[in-house]
């Protein structure tokens, strides 16, 4: 069963919160991982790995640099679902 955008956002917010300690309601679609959420490239790989496990998708390393905002990641994950 495919996850909806809302479900992916909620799940991603939990993962980001776990990694960074930020409240889940700070993880909004328009937020930039780097500039707004202060997530560095290594933390981003941790978040991506947990997102792959949670949503059953594969996010190649070379695509991670294109995920600038939370919204980019939500769109990528929902699109990557079979």
């Amino acid at each position, binding site marked *: 069963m495919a996850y909806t955008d809302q479900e992916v956002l909620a799940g991603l917010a939990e993962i980001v919160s776990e990694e960074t300690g930020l409240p889940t309601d700070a993880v909004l679609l328009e937020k930039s991982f780097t500039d707004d959420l202060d997530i560095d490239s*290594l933390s981003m*790989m*941790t978040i991506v790995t947990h997102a792959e496990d949670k949503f059953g998708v594969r996010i190649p390393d070379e695509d991670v640099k294109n995920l600038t905002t939370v919204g980019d990641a939500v769109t990528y994950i929902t699109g990557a679902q079979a």
Partner: protein
Amino acid sequence: MSGATIRQATGPAYSRILGIGGVRGENVVTNDDVAGPIDSSDEWIRQRTGIVTRRRAGAQTTVLDLSEAAARKALDAAGLSGDDIDAVIVSTVTYFHQTPAAAAVLADRLGATPAAAFDVSAACAGYTYGIAQADALVRSGTARHVLVVGAEKMSDFIDPTDRSISFLLGDGAGAAIVGPSDTPGIGPTVWGSDGGKAQAIRQTHAWSDLREDPELGWPTLRQDGQTVFKWASFQMAPIAAKAMAEAGVSPGDIGAFVPHQANMRIIDQMIKQLALPDSVAVARDIAETGNTSAASIPLATERLLAEGQVGSGDLALQIGFGAGLVYAAQVIVLP
């Protein structure tokens, strides 16, 4: 067809590490010393890597010098001398000679001739690859006492302007003597490779390219940091867990966790993935020594023993991983 039957060698049922020794490059290189050419800072390097200083050897010090100094300390710790050694394995990727092997020259320096001697190229997994081979050589009866050395002078292959790996690297050597044991001392090795990721940690160009185009200059190392971080943090933890399972122990039985000292963030993530209890002493030698590739595990182990964080007879879970990509993990009884 000959009717004769050959005899095959058999050895003792068990092997163990009898002594460990290590040496670090004599110069302390701070983050401020390396930050300028990569437009970085002490704070950034600490936050990203956990490294405070790295140790680098002087211009005249060679991989062989480091190897010899570490080997002599390991021999002392084991209560043995060079002529007790009948096989020498040097794991290194920074020895300047294609041939002869560093191990043969080292054996001679130590008075171990005519010990069998060969080098291993398994980068940051070189030490745990060496232990796997030493264990097999002893238990097969092929050798009685094996010297395993992980030795690197990484500073010979760095580019001060490289932001990917050079600023992490240090120089040093760590050595272990493996010999027969009355009780199990080296658990099964869980090892492997993934050459599909050969470019993740690489030399900028081959020696043959340099011969064709001298303008290329001296080759140095590069890595895809994010790819390596993800692989090491999340794919190596299950390998370490498998090494515990194969040895028949659980995280609560482990006294020390000694991963290759690549990056403190990788170490922290592996601890999380393995759910190691607080009772486990974790090797964090990288903070002072930097990433010394094949030397990092024995150096970190020696520090844990010297600081009394673990004692003789305690179990250590060790895992090497690096360029290849290659990896090897085993649980050992500390000497």
